[in-house]
């Protein structure tokens, strides 16, 4: 199973995306699945570093008979993205606060998300279809 640890810096987000793009290519994933994985990695990485103050993050990717799995583990503050509300704009009102859209995008670009906190780390497993565009979720569920 391909897996790699990255330092908890904003600059490492690009490194993580480059690595995941290479792994997606090696797995021969459909373009929309590659897009979804890239998006989730960027959003999770930046959240973990900027808001969770993580020192490191480890990303693993593997296939199962029913699709693709990506595990994102970080040692930042506890945060359950499956339980966070998905923010979105409504109408042409311009008095909105900028930012906070990343978690909602992760929820919507995955088929299912499972979160648990263990040993001082956030552990999130994302599920994707590895074929065509059937990833629009969300089946996000917190762990028992």
């Amino acid at each position, binding site marked *: 199973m391909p897996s790699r640890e990255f330092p908890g810096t904003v600059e490492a987000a690009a490194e993580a995306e480059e690595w995941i793009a290479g792994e997606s290519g090696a797995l021969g994933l459909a373009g929309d699945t590659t*897009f*979804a994985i890239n998006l989730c990695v*960027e959003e999770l990485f930046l959240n973990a570093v900027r808001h969770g103050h993580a020192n490191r993050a480890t990303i693993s990717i593997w296939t199962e008979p029913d699709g693709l799995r990506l595990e994102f583990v970080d040692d930042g503050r506890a945060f359950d993205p499956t339980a966070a509300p998905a923010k979105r*704009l409504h109408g042409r009102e311009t008095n909105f606060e900028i*930012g906070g859209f*990343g978690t909602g995008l992760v929820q919507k670009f995955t088929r299912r998300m499972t979160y648990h906190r263990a040993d001082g780390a956030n552990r999130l497993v994302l599920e994707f279809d590895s074929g065509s565009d059937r990833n629009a979720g969300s089946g996000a569920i917190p762990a028992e």
Partner: protein
Amino acid sequence: MDMTVTETPEGVTHVALDGRFDIAGAQAVDRRFAELAEKAKILVVDLAKVSFLASLGVRTLMISAKTIIRRGAYIAVAGASQDVEKVLRLTGYDELVGLYPDVDSAARALTSRAKEFESRKA
């Protein structure tokens, strides 16, 4: 990410972006986008060559839209791929700014809206 700005004789500012609109892409164009949003009367953002869009790219687009709409100017987005458009729709950006299949249709729609507004004022 590359950003090319052209002005048409009809007063439309055309911003063509090329590359990934991720954290690095957003950092590369943020300042120029903010400057354009302060002065453009009709701004068409061409995303046809944007292969990837994440929330920081949406943030740049939202800040510009907020500035432009508050100034009473006009903005539209054109040419987004299916995945990029999905990001724009899921964040609700499409409720703030019109999405068009290409630059020409976006420019036509905004120019006609601006003319209609001017004629009502006259």
